């Protein structure tokens, strides 16, 4: 997965986007963590990148990619820059009834992006 640091020529990459809960006034109900990594994916997915990296190891993907590189696209031409690896985020917060809730929320943080 590429990081969006201005050197990847607009290819599909992960853009870091951190929100400090204090800055949006949410620190009165969210005890921890102090902020959220709302990372997202952006950038272009040329045909030769389709299927990378999520399913690059697949034999079928390798064959399909060869077709694409030669300009012969079986199936869909377009691919999309999407999260290929997500992680869980644990949160500690107050609910409406002033209870403290600790919750493990899966697939909350984008760790890697790729073309699919």
């Amino acid at each position, binding site marked *: 997965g590429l990081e969006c640091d201005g050197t990847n020529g607009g290819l599909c990459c992960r853009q870091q986007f951190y929100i400090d809960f204090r800055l949006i006034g949410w620190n009165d109900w969210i005890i921890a963590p102090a902020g959220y990594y*709302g990372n997202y994916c952006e950038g272009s997915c040329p045909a030769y990148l389709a299927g990378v990296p999520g399913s690059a190891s697949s034999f079928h993907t390798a064959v399909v990619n060869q077709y694409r590189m030669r300009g012969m696209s079986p199936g869909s031409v377009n691919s999309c820059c999407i999260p290929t690896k997500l992680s869980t985020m644990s949160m*500690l917060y107050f609910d409406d009834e002033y209870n403290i809730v600790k919750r493990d929320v899966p697939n909350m943080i984008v760790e890697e992006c790729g073309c699919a």
Partner: protein
Amino acid sequence: TVSQESQCASCGLGHPDDSGRMDTDFLEAVKRHILNRLQMRERPNITHPIPKAAMVTALRKLHAGKVREDGRFEIPNLDGHAAHNEVQEETSEIISFAESDDVTPSKSSLYFLISNEGNQNLYVLQANLWLYFKLLPGTQEKGLRRKVTVRVHYYEPGGQNVHWPMMEKRVELKRSGWHTFPVSEAVREMLAKGGRRQDLDIHCDGCEAANVQPILVDPNDPSHRPFLVVHAQQADGKHRIRKR
């Protein structure tokens, strides 16, 4: 390309002219995303904060929480990234602090507010009541173990003051401290009925003779306010993701 942009939501983002507006839009989208994932329609309206002493004690007592000396919270895996990325089941720990009001019939009565609203389809794995027992002056010096029997009853507020036995536990006290009482079944039943209020009555046989006092809702002693810890997970099995 244009054709890619038209079909791919994440393609073509990041035009420099729109960066300010994009940040605002993303901020709103992220806020909505967090609320959705926590199954909330709106952020909770916090008008009066929980006494910090009560909160610190409750978190200190739980395995999940550590409190640093400066009073800030230090929660393992709560730096925004959980330690185990493979964790796919959504689990919750809810700490509810005891309340008392005019409806509670006696000094030994208290109640907790827990609802499935915003936590839909939660299955209660375990619920424990935490009570602090204080040895009154004159007892501690003797260093003797005191045995008391604690009975927890539940009742329906506004009813005819009928108390139903919930659990009974023999407690041995050498010094003042916290003790836990399992109340999983009662909390499960209450949530299954669509209720949100768990009314309890605490009776301690032998406490008076042993010079022991269970601390209930006492505004002068927020550090020892009773609390209920509910461990729950999403009950909806069909959305469970399994790794193969």
